[in-house]
């Protein structure tokens, strides 16, 4: 997975609603049709970093099958960050595409 994209994917996943680490990992894998594999080992440090920056907050809750789990929720700052990062990502993808597939009409 590309460096830094994990943060974006976590934020995007949480935009749909609060979730715990396990759910987030599987949600990302499922929604990418299992193309993106989230290494569970790097997920938790990433969550910690995002929380530290104030983009997400956490609380202890109960999971679907009645287990204690730490849930994460997007903060307003996180929402803003998501928008900004998404825009930035789009620009990046467009720029890379321009290089990889130049417009044929120019010549």
């Amino acid at each position, binding site marked *: 997975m590309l460096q830094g994209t994990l943060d974006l994917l976590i934020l995007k996943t949480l935009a749909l609603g609060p979730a715990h680490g396990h759910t987030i990992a599987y949600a990302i894998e499922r929604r990418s049709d299992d193309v993106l594999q989230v290494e569970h*080992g790097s997920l938790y440090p990433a969550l*910690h970093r995002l929380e530290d920056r104030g983009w997400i907050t956490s609380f202890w809750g109960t999971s679907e099958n009645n*287990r204690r789990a730490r849930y994460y929720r997007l903060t307003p700052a996180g929402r803003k960050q998501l928008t900004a990062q998404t825009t930035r990502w789009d620009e990046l993808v467009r720029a890379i595409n321009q290089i990889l597939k130049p417009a044929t009409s120019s010549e």
Partner: protein
Amino acid sequence: MAFSRFFRRSRWDDERARELEAHLEIETADNIGRGMAPKEALEAARRKLGNVTRIREDIYLINTIGIVDSVWRDLLYGARLLRLNPGFAIVAILSLALGVGANTAIFQLLDAVRLRALPVTHPEQLVEVRIPGNDNRSGAVMGRHPVLTNLLWERLRDRQQAFSGVFAWGSIGFELSAGGESREAEGLWVSGDYFRTLDVQPVVGRLLVADDDRRGCAAPPAVISYGFWQREYGGSPSAVGRAISLDGHSYDIVGVTPASFFGVEVGRSYDIAVPLCAEPYSRASRSSLDRKDAWFLAVIGRLKSDWPSEKATAHLRTLASDMFRETLPNYSPEDTREYLASTLAAFPAQTGVSNLRSDYESPLWLLLATTVLVLLIACANLANLMLARATAREREIAVRLALGASRGRIVRQLTAESLLIAAAGSAAGALLAQWLSRLLVASLATEDDRVFVALAGDWRVFSFIALLAAGTCMIFGVLPAIRATATSPGAAMKAGSRGTTDSRERFGLRRLLVVAQVALSLVLVVGALLFAGSLRNIVTTDAGFTHDAILVATVDFRRAGLSDANITLTHAQLLERLRRQPPVQDAAQVRVVPVSGNFSNRRIVIDGVERKENVNRNAVSDRYFKTMTTVMLAGRDFDARDGATAAKVAVVTESFARVFYGGQNPVGRTFQVAEAPGQPRPIYEIVGLARDSKYGDLRESFEPLMFVPAAQDDQVALTQRLVIRTADVARTTAAMTAVVRTISPSIVVTYRTMQAQVRDSLLRERLMATLSGLFGGLAAVIAIIGLYGVMSYFVVRRRNEIGIRMALGADRREVVRMVMREAAILVAAGLTVGAVAALLAARTASTLLFGVKPYDPITLATAIAGLAIVATLASYVPAWRASRLEPTVALRED
């Protein structure tokens, strides 16, 4: 943010551990749901998540401020080492505390006296107005800063445009006592704008304003200092409104200045400030306000914002010529020429004015240099100790280096311990300095000279201490640590396993440190010997009079309300009765007590030609020369013939005869005293020739001096002085006080022994001799301990070699010689370097020396010989111990 995380790391870690556990549980449950066996499910979940400890560590690292964390750990490690070896820690911290304390105390004093600005608003705008270059004023020169006359000041005040505020002030001692024992207060004459210009606000009441200082003021107000208010009135607000009697004249106290305000003179504090216009009120016919030749005021102004100092000087110069022309005193032609050529200029006064500064600035810098050297020597000793300890750990260090620890990391860890020592030592030193600097200030004060220095820790003092701490830590911490890690691990492991002889290279730094110690201590010992020699020279110098058993009595008639004629009469009566008191061997009246700092001089005219040399002058009664045991070489003493109306006579000294009469016996010759034009020039007949004696200062060489009879003196002083020769000071003062009381209860008498006066006049020399002696001795002791330490270490490191030599037949004397040779090389190198450094360093002290050349060969030789002898003794002990080694034992040991 980062720091709150930093301090909550462990709580976070627990959270994460629980979270990861929850993750595993959920994953396991999912796996079971997918049909795995429970055990297999858990293992699959673990595999998927990876190393839990590793994840926790990753998160922990996010929370860590890397350098802080490792430094903190190093410090804890250092603290543990210190606790393990408390003896070393105590010695190290104590020696640093002493060194830092002495340095800080002297620096604090320098800071207060030299560096710190006056505690008033915008001190950088203050400038002092002075006559540049001229300190040779004729007339009455009074107070501690006699710069201008009142007539010059009034013109300056009325005409200047450079200052937003300008004021004049003069110092005066006020007598508080109504009679009997004297009680002096430090007084100030201040002009109206004094407090406004300095922007001082009252604590109680009000301060003086321009309206208080109008010529002819009748019931003048007085402002008192905070200290005086506390001392005399217990800080009671009711002090304001009370009357206070100064020299027998009443003033109304109107206000108190804040505790931080001590005036504009650094080194003194004032008690009472009264308006300048009250001067005639206090001194009546002796008033100086309209005297054109009465120098007693100093002037300070606050520059307007658009007036740089140079512009102000230019402005003052244009004002000066008119001012000096209009106020020309009735001077002799030579003085007139000088006076009219005078001008005025503005000098920076941000740090106030100070006599203490001019007297003590260079001694203090010199002492600071001395204490820095002592600290350096002490640091070198600590560095040697640290090196020894690092050597003991060299295998450990080698192993760690071999295992891939970075050198910087190990240096940091080794330094942590010294950093703790440096910090603790400096903190203790800073505390010690508070006490030492007060002691130092107290030792600067004399009976006459009440020294007040506002000692406060400001940023300069704190940065100085921090600098010392960092510097010392560098020397005895970082340097040895770098040295200890500078070996290749392989070599260290090999060398550590079985030492035979020690490589010179590894031992080099320790030798270098000892050489430096010996060199620096030689510099300090030479300095100490120079100052001690200088003091001895002054004390034993021939003053021309004896100071043993002489009592000086000051008789203050200011409150007695007597006419001049009556003062003379009363004083003569007092002297007569005093001479009849049993403990009094002899007594005489004197105008200027020798070595008191007072002086009076005249130009004389011989055969109608005015001579350019100033001649010191004293007015004495009969028996003065007897009392002071000054030998009369020819002619006679003054006696009853030389009354006020009789022909004028004089006794002159050898130098007088040498300068003006080519060394011939001048008795019977005549000369005139140059008076102002139009005044008669009285003719003096020389009736006696006395031996030379010192006048203003013991340090000066003999200069021409003339004595005239006190009865023929040109004016009657309100305070008269007596010199009394007596073996029993206590009985004499009691007898005299009793005599004075029967004459008038309102006469105030002060006593002082001549010895005390001489001692006080040599305060600076005594201080330098004592302190440099103390530091020089300390330096030598520390250096010798260092040498001893290194030689002992040398012997220990070479036990095997010595053992082999002895086993092969070397006798004990040869072993002693070997060790002593080693020591001699170190000491010789140190002394050589030190001798050169001492010669260079002594030059800076040359102005403070009396009768000793800074490059005095005997002093240098004495210091070198002394240190060499002590060093030999110190290295003989380890050498002897080496020769006692049992070869078999030495070889069997590791």
